[in-house]
């Protein structure tokens, strides 16, 4: 909370004096007060800084878009030929966008800072890069969905979790209503099977929210990796990849009367929270056969906005003290 309070002062814009150097003509630029350890540092941005930062950022943006376009085209074509369905699988695309966004957050400031680009410009340029990526990928998804419908590709699997949710959300025009729409599993499957014409606006908004959230999370991960360093990053990854499943397994074999019920409730809570962020609210119990889903766009948008904002703040805080250190002995 303290960081949030301090960040309120970041965007206090003012006018700066002209640069007085001999090599570059002075120019007027926006100034933003930048909180720091000594409380005196300020960030002054210039048009050139933006140009340089954007030049590097664009390489990753183009990389993401090109890959997504190729992948979606290839998958869609192959699936259509094989009589299967791709529906512009959003989950792998989200993962891919997050991964490349992380790489961009890790690498771009390394180059940009060396060319006199302020840290604020670098991190802000990537926000815009994420918006561009998300918008283009969303449009590509819509194109793929349109092609799928045109060639009447069949829904074969529910594995593409995000894609299915987007499609489900978009299939019901009244999903925009604040009141959630309750459907049982069977109804949802039937609706999906019929493949009603979706509400394209909802489709675009939902897909954009997914992809943008993924890129913002990726940016935060990239900044965190750069802050942690290679060794610590590997350790954290190992903890997540090995430690968490191991812990879950241990909890599952724990005392069935004390620990296991608590763990199960915790896992259920996590599942419910994740589903809620996707616009799904589970009702009833799966074992009782009365498991219903509530589809609504609002939880998705709200969670996307909150997660993105948190990631943006986190990225900025991490990038604020980012350094390119020489090879020195660290005690």
């Amino acid at each position, binding site marked *: 909370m303290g960081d949030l309070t301090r960040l309120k002062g970041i965007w206090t814009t003012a006018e700066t004096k002209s*640069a007085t150097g001999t090599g570059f003509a002075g120019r007027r*630029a926006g100034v933003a007060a*930048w909180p720091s*350890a000594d409380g005196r*540092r300020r960030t002054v941005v210039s048009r*050139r800084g933006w140009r340089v930062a954007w030049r590097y950022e664009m390489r990753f943006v183009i990389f993401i878009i090109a890959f997504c376009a190729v992948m979606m085209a290839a998958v869609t074509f192959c699936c259509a030929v094989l009589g299967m369905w791709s529906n512009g699988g959003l989950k792998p695309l989200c993962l891919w966008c997050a991964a490349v966004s992380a790489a961009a957050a890790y690498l771009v400031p390394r*180059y940009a800072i060396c060319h*006199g680009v*302020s840290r604020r410009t670098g991190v802000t340029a990537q926000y815009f890069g994420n918006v561009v990526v998300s918008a283009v990928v969303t449009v590509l998804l819509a194109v793929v969905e349109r092609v799928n419908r045109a060639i009447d590709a069949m829904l074969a699997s529910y594995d593409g979790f995000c894609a299915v949710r987007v499609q489900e959300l978009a299939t019901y025009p009244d999903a925009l209503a604040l009141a959630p729409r309750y459907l049982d599993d069977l109804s949802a499957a039937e609706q999906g099977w019929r493949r009603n014409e979706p509400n394209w606006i909802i489709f675009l908004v939902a897909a954009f929210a997914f992809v943008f959230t993924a890129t913002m999370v990726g940016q935060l991960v990239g900044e965190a990796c750069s802050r942690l360093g290679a060794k610590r990053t590997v350790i954290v990854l190992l903890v997540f990849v090995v430690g968490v499943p191991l812990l879950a397994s241990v909890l599952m074999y724990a005392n069935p009367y004390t620990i296991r019920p608590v763990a199960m409730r915790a896992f259920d809570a996590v599942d419910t929270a994740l589903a809620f962020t996707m616009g799904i609210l589970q009702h009833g119990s799966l074992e009782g056969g009365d498991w219903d889903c509530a589809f609504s766009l609002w939880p998705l948008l709200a969670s996307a906005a909150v997660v993105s904002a948190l990631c943006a703040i986190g990225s900025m805080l991490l990038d604020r003290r980012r350094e390119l250190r020489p090879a020195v002995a660290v005690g």
Partner: protein
Amino acid sequence: MGLRVTDLAKRYGRTTALDGMSLDLRPGVVYGLFGRNGAGKSTLLGCLGNRLIPDSGSLELDGEPLAENEPAMERTYLADERLPWWPGRSLESILRDCGRIYGGFDREFADTLAERFGIDVECPYNRLSLGRRTASRMAIGLCLPVDYLFLDEPTLGLDPVARTLMARSVIEACARRSRTVVISTHDVAEFAGVIEAAVVIDHGRRLDRFDVQDLYRHAAVLSGPASAVDAAVGRLGLTVLDRECHGMSANVMVALDSGADVWEGVPDGTDDGADDGSDVGCDDPAAALAARVGGGVHVRTPDLRTYVIRLIQERN
């Protein structure tokens, strides 16, 4: 005007890299930054190049804060061991990129330097030898239209011929475009003919800062019979930086700080009320010193490399 470093401090964990460093860099002057490994040279340049964030202190360029100030930052460039481009790119594409990023990039001089150092501009950077990679990075820096250029270890991996060429290239670059250059290097002798002012640092602190042409005001070598030299040194209260004995004769390098008795009574040309020679007004301090030491003791100005080494050794 110029680049002002005030009370700069930087720590890496428990290691203190800079400890209250203060410095003024004047426009259009070539500086040498000298010190032992770990003295804080690269950290100081890193702070000046905005790659490191100091823990405390301030950096001002022409009165404007340098940190996170893009109009000021774009007037500086740090050429160090890091290539700010993807290392798989060729020097040719990097130079083209420089032309687009920096208006006024001296492409003609860049081509000259590439030819001078035998760099194949079409070869990917990461396939070049260590010396040529260094030459490439430094060549890029020398051709950029910046007012303050910081060169960190510009002779890393260079052969003796290339080192000489590098020193000459710095002079040429300054002739083509006036700028302040700070050269951090251990090759003091190689750049002795290039630098105009020297800054010696150790343990994150500034040991000395002087104009090279005024070196004779900072130190002198007394040569002659060992007994006479020692007597003069003791009588005048000089700080001994180095002592070499050759049979009965000795060469003693002494620091000429303002507190020494050697300047007592020597007119210094300034009106600060004290004739102590410290106000850079004494025309021939070597002659003045020679007149005071007497007894067959000769006085001469030490070379830059020897002075820097002895100064650092004396402080350690």
